[in-house]
């Protein structure tokens, strides 16, 4: 049983995009100006009695840290600031402002964190303003990834709000000269029921910062008593979305702002041999920038920037070693990387697989492959950069505002205290917006133009110059005994990753290894990371084993699962689906899969229809998903996340794949990279949410995506008799 910190560190191993060296380091002379920033310093007063410093329960280096002052300071220590005022402020008007380093990318963190504060502070959600991802205002946070907002940030906000509630109660008790235990907190007021005396929060704080500290054991409300959390609070800024009022980064306009474009190499690894920019530079309002290998233009409109870009005459030197062909991909991924026998992280060695296989009555080996897929967020990477004196402000849609701040500091050789990153609620990320290329590029262009610059990546750039979910090859060998119980499990994952690599099945002899591969494409985090690949390989192999010994796939799994939470979702999905009640009719096939990731548990049952003659896939008739992640924070938003993940997962399951050749992406457009659309919806989708108020709330942004692909593959096998071992299950004919 791994500790949360161990699990978190394991997650980190796969975030290749974070381990890369900087993409740009610009030759800007270091300014010798160190201006102390006013306005952010907090007068630190510990109110009398000793209060324990906030201890962040999990992964202390990774979460919610920051110096004593708001904004995290110049990168010092990353411990969570202990004083309430760094996280929450109550204005004289009673408006509550909360500060979090998490960002909103469609997962409804803005709403769920509002609920967390509203619950503990006993205020209406409408009186809360949530400031997210503004590096000048919020405590340091490592990033919005790993499904960490619900299990780590929400409890933090709750402790903060509970501490504020206690502090306010103390202040009211002083004011009324009464025992604080005779007071109740409700609706933004402290009341003394016996006398009817009442005082609003705003009157108590007078708008001053709350300097009391947050204790790790602040009295937070147990789930059984929740009145705000656990209910469906509608998305707090929904009205701005449906009216088009909300400004995404790509919508922002700054005074005198110009638009940028970046010149991309004609292939990966190509180097700029020569550049003739005379024509472009002669265009009205155009500035051309060349800094090392970075070439870009700015102009008064996007069209003018495009025209300027097209007018650049660049010659490229191809890389010394040709970029690998997609045909070599899986061979490359299995080629050992020097100095790496096994991956280390995620490896399991239990018992003796050799002995287990010798004792097995049935053995099965198979190889599974998983293609690269793209995040394809509907809002592409975008940034607006503005230099003033020596302060750089960048608005950008990123999951890591403080990470981007560091990237900017490194790229320009300036201190983080001179950089301000803001993240408007963003048009999705899915793990694909951890890196700040666009922010750095926009800042470089703005520096050259001497004006604010907006840079919005084209769809082609978003498909080509970001990073992908890793491709992978997975070899599995399993053995069962005569009683249908697994006796051996050997599992090798090449390149794809370690997320959920360990089976939750009850297997006495296991050897599980991750092997680093030579990925020809830039790769990194994705929704669920390698859990999508690992569940595909594992759950299809389980299905193959079940069929080979003539046991029902559901029964086979239940026979081999001890984990109660996994059993529960599997049983719930199967029951809602009617798995054991009836049988599929001709031309239909049923498949199921179950899994776990980041503290959540999921199971899916799928019915597909095939053409009765050709037995080719025709349609998805039914999908039933069961999901459990502890105590539910917002039932409707949870269902939204689960359904959304399943629908998105249809793409990776059925048709999404990145094709490449000669150092270029072959399908960098929506016209050539197929994503799920309305008509790909299953005829019927049903979701069962299990609410475990007795368990801490885990995140749900990722886990629900892992079961759909193997369940679909297994259903296809049942319907057609053809076993498919590759994702996507139904690739384009003739594609690379």
């Amino acid at each position, binding site marked *: 049983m791994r500790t949360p910190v161990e699990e978190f560190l394991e997650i980190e191993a796969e975030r290749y995009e974070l381990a890369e060296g900087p993409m740009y380091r610009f030759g800007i002379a270091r300014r010798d100006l160190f201006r102390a920033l006013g306005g952010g310093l907090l007068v630190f007063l510990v109110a009398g009695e000793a209060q324990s410093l906030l201890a962040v329960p999990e992964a202390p280096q990774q979460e919610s840290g920051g110096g004593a002052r708001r904004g995290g300071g110049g990168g010092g220590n990353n411990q969570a600031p202990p004083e309430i005022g760094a996280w929450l402020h109550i204005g004289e008007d009673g408006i509550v402002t909360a500060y979090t380093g998490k960002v909103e990318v469609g997962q409804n963190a803005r709403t769920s964190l509002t609920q967390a504060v509203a619950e503990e502070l006993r205020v209406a959600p409408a009186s809360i303003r949530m400031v997210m991802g503004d590096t000048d205002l919020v405590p340091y946070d490592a990033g919005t990834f790993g499904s960490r907002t619900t299990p780590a940030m929400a409890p933090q906000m709750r402790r903060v709000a509970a501490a504020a509630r206690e502090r306010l109660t103390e202040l009211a008790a002083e004011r009324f000269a009464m025992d604080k235990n005779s007071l109740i907190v409700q609706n933004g007021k402290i009341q003394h029921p016996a006398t009817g005396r009442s005082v609003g929060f705003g009157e108590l704080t007078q708008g001053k910062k709350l300097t009391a500290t947050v204790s790790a054991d602040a009295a937070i409300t147990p789930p059984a008593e929740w009145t705000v959390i656990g209910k469906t609070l509608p998305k707090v800024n*929904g009205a701005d979305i*449906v*009216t088009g009022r909300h400004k*995404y980064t790509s*919508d922002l306009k700054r005074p005198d702002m110009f638009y940028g474009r970046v010149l991309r190499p004609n292939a990966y690894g190509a180097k700029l041999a020569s550049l003739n920019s005379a024509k472009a530079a002669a265009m009205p309002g155009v500035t051309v920038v060349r800094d090392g290998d970075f070439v870009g233009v700015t102009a008064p409109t996007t069209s003018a920037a495009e025209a300027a870009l097209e007018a650049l005459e660049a010659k490229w030197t191809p890389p010394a070693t040709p970029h690998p062909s997609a045909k070599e991909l899986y061979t490359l991924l299995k080629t050992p990387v020097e100095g790496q026998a096994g991956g280390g992280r995620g490896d399991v060695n239990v018992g003796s697989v050799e002995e287990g296989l010798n004792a097995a009555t049935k053995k099965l080996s198979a190889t599974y492959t998983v293609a690269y897929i793209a995040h394809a967020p509907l809002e592409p990477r975008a940034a607006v950069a503005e230099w003033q004196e020596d302060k750089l402000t960048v608005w950008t849609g990123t999951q890591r505002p403080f990470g981007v701040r560091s990237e900017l500091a490194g790229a320009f050789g300036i201190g983080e205290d001179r950089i301000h990153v803001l993240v408007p609620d963003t048009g*999705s990320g899915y793990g694909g917006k951890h890196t700040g290329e666009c922010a750095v590029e926009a800042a470089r262009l703005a520096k050259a133009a001497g004006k604010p610059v907006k840079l919005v990546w084209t769809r082609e750039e978003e498909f080509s110059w970001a990073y992908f979910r890793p491709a992978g090859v997975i070899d599995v060998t399993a053995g069962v005994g005569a009683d249908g119980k697994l006796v051996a499990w050997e599992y090798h994952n090449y390149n794809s990753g370690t997320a959920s690599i360990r089976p939750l099945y009850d297997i006495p002899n296991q050897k599980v290894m991750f092997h680093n591969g030579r990925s020809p494409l830039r790769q990194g985090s994705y929704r669920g990371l390698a859990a999508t690949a690992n569940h595909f390989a594992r759950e299809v192999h389980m299905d193959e084993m079940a069929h080979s010994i003539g046991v029902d796939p559901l029964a086979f799994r239940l026979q081999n699962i001890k984990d109660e939470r996994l059993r529960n979702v599997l049983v719930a999905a199967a029951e809602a689906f009617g798995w054991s009640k009836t049988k599929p009719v001709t031309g239909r096939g049923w498949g199921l899969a179950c899994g776990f990731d980041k503290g959540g548990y999921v199971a899916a049952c799928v019915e597909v229809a095939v053409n009765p003659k050709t037995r080719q896939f025709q349609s998805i008739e039914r999908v039933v998903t069961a999901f459990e992640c502890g105590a539910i924070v917002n039932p409707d*938003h949870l269902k*939204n996340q689960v359904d959304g993940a399943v629908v998105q997962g249809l793409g990776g399951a059925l048709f999404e794949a990145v094709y490449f050749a000669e150092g270029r992406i072959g399908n960098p457009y*929506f016209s050539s990279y197929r*994503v799920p659309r309305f008509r790909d919806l299953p005829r019927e989708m049903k979701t069962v949410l299990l609410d475990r108020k007795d368990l801490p709330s885990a995140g749900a942004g990722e886990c629900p995506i892992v079961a759909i692909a193997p369940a679909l593959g297994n259903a296809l096998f049942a319907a057609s008799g053809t076993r498919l071992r590759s994702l996507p299950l139904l690739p384009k004919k003739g594609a690379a």
Partner: protein
Amino acid sequence: MTPKNFPLVVNGEKRPVTAAEDETLLRVLRENLDLTGTKYGCGEGQCGACTVLVDGKPVRSCITPAATAVGKPVTTIEGLANGDKLHPLQEAFLAEGAMQCGYCIPGMIVSAAGLLKRNPNPSEAQILQAMQGNICRCGSYPRILAAIQRAIKGKTS
């Protein structure tokens, strides 16, 4: 490229702009008129985030020359509400929670508005067909479908 005047009428108001003669309607709306509700998603008319109504019909403004919109009423997401009163589709999307990151939503609502103008009572299959050109990468299709159906039921005209 010589700049050209486009005497556009957007959301019931005269909004003349000057832009390159081959400028797209999307860029004119977003950059000249600061009507940023209509979004850029792909630039090739494949994702529907840029959908506006021209003469009541949905068009992908990213591949529509501004010139072709002259002389016709243009409606963007900003023009659907009546002051504070939201359009039935907007209310339905809110009621169904039919959004996650929200980026596709203006295009979805405008496409749906266009559909309901030409077919006030479409079947589910007709809705799916009409909306097939709008991508929701977050996977909110089931809710968006429910929102459109809700708006249809709730319409009084």
